[in-house]
């Protein structure tokens, strides 16, 4: 009962957030004069009549509030509108561009969590060992590198030399899993690593710090004195308690993850949602931009609900209310 109620409330508040984001983006882009949009569409040499007809066609001559109600009504029917430039349905565009982005996020997140938490746990249990010191240095470098620098350096140092020596498995651009899992992995490997390196650094550091604090607690000593195996002490008693702040950090970082996704798509030419959105931003293609922002916001909202659920599973003291 409480669980269902929690879910309903979170979904409702998520919808409110989505509405706020959509409206915010909508009005933000109307801060620009309509003329510039039409100008870009019609070309620099267009006559005033042509520009006016373009404005009329796009419905940009109506009062803003009318356009806004129209926009909201369409949104309620699940229709994100049509691109100003290609007249393509935004729903179709997002459907087409989703696979590269989804592959990137899925693989990147898995790699990121395995690397971040794994290295964090290892260095906390071997505090001040050579491994710990090496990982601390690597974490600092990871923290100091922008995503696109990681990506570019990977291209210069891995992709270019390998391909020059005839080893062509690792590629840039995107190839779907339909062309074979090996091909897909080869194309996605460098983007995954770039995404994981930068994100994992924060988590390694957080996990290490939390686990070190937790392992100093009295109940860990009790667990050890009961004669539990070291593995059980660390994973059952240590990691589980140490994970709570890590998970709450996760909720904050998901928004940042999306920024990283946009940049990586541009660097590796993946032609995913992010790259299309950046192109749309350059062109003032309002419906495409709003579509992308809404998908991104929906992703953040859903991910945050999942994070909250995991949180309650990890720490029974946190109750869903």
């Amino acid at each position: 009962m409480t669980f269902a109620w929690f879910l309903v409330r979170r979904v409702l508040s998520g919808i409110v957030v989505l509405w706020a984001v959509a409206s915010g983006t909508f009005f933000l882009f109307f801060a620009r004069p309509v003329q510039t949009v039409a100008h870009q569409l019609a070309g620099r040499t267009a006559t005033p009549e042509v520009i006016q007809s373009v404005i009329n066609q796009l419905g940009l001559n109506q009062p803003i509030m009318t356009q806004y109600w129209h926009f909201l009504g369409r949104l309620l029917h699940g229709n994100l509108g049509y691109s100003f430039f290609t007249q393509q349905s935004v729903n179709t565009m997002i459907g087409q561009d989703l696979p590269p982005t989804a592959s990137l996020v899925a693989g990147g997140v898995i790699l990121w969590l395995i690397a971040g938490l794994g290295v964090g746990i290892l260095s906390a249990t071997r505090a001040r060992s050579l491994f710990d010191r090496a990982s601390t240095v690597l974490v600092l470098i990871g923290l100091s590198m922008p995503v696109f620098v990681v990506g570019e350096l990977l291209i210069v140092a891995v992709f270019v030399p390998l391909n020059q020596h005839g080893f062509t498995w690792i590629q840039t651009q995107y190839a779907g899993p339909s062309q074979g899992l090996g091909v897909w992995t080869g194309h996605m490997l460098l983007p995954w690593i770039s995404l994981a390196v930068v994100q994992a650094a924060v988590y390694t550091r957080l996990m290490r710090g939390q686990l070190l604090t937790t392992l100093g607690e009295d109940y860990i000593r009790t667990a050890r004195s009961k004669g539990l195996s070291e593995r059980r002490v660390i994973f059952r008693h240590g990691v589980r308690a140490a994970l709570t702040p890590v998970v709450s950090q996760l909720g904050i970082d998901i928004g940042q993850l999306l920024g990283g996704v946009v940049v990586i798509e541009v660097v590796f030419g993946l032609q995913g949602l992010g790259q299309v959105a950046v192109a749309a931003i350059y062109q003032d293609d309002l419906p495409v931009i709003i579509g992308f922002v809404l998908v991104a916001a929906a992703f953040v909202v859903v991910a945050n609900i999942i994070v909250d659920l995991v949180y309650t599973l990890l720490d029974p003291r946190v109750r869903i209310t």
Partner: protein
Amino acid sequence: MSIADLERQAQQAENAPVRAIEGRSQWWLTRQRLRRDKVAMISLAVIIIMVLLAIFAPAFAALVHHPANTAYPIAGENSAGQPVGPGTNGFWLGTDDTGRDLMVRVFYGARISLFVGIVTTALATVAGVAIGLTAGYFGGITDTILARLTDAVLAFPFVVLALALAVVFGPSLTIVIAVISFFAWAGIARIVRGQTLSLKEKEYIEAARSIGAGPFRIMFIDILPNLLAPVLVIATLYIPNAVIFEATLSFLGLGIQPPTASWGNMLSAAQPFYQTAWWFVVFPSLALLITTLAFNLLGDGIRDAMDPTTERLLAARRRKRSRGALFRPRNDDPDLIIAGDAK
């Protein structure tokens, strides 16, 4: 001992140079600890060198006779129109896509990066401290509204919105600074709020209130000084983030516009040259990495130096290690003295 002896002794004592009893403030102790931290000192030196390079970038340009935005199609490009490598034709780090001097442009990029990093951090710190203090001190509905706002800013996919803002208002240095500051204050505000919440329950705040101090006096004169240490640490650690953020925006073409040199837009221009001109990618990346790494290391150093608990841990560890050498005189160990005084 005669009276004359006593008088002489008294005279000597009076004439002896007065040894001042030095107060050891928290800041003094922090500085001492920081000075002993080699990594932090090296980072500080690197930062100072970077700042000097940035300030004297025009002087370097004059030294090698290559202004930052001048292309050298003949000397700076080979016969195929490609950039030339480091050390060729007097270009120490090679040239970029249009045959401009890469070294001079990297130094000019430092101007933008450091300026944006420091200015945005300063703006965000002022805003974050003001909002965090207000929310934490007044509580109630003020706190609810401000805390919700902070959470909203923290949770938003900010690169996406930053892109949108940069496009709507047209990319420029001012917009870059505004956008980064807009997203940076929230983290600082959250921490300041938390600290204020616990500080305002302290007895000395109640004492201040009981002698009639107003809310603003309490906030800025009684609470704020106790927040300076954590705020300084967050601010130092935020500078590299701001530098990265600026580079990312410029890389996507929405920050600093060419021909003005910024590490981000240089790396963006370098994209088609991965195969042919490694220096074009490597040197701006390296400059960016060195700068952000130095700020991160310095921030970590300051945090460790300010936190007496880490010092106590270190001292405890040292004690444990030296347990083998029995009765080793330890009062000459400055760490222990400082750890004791800090309490």
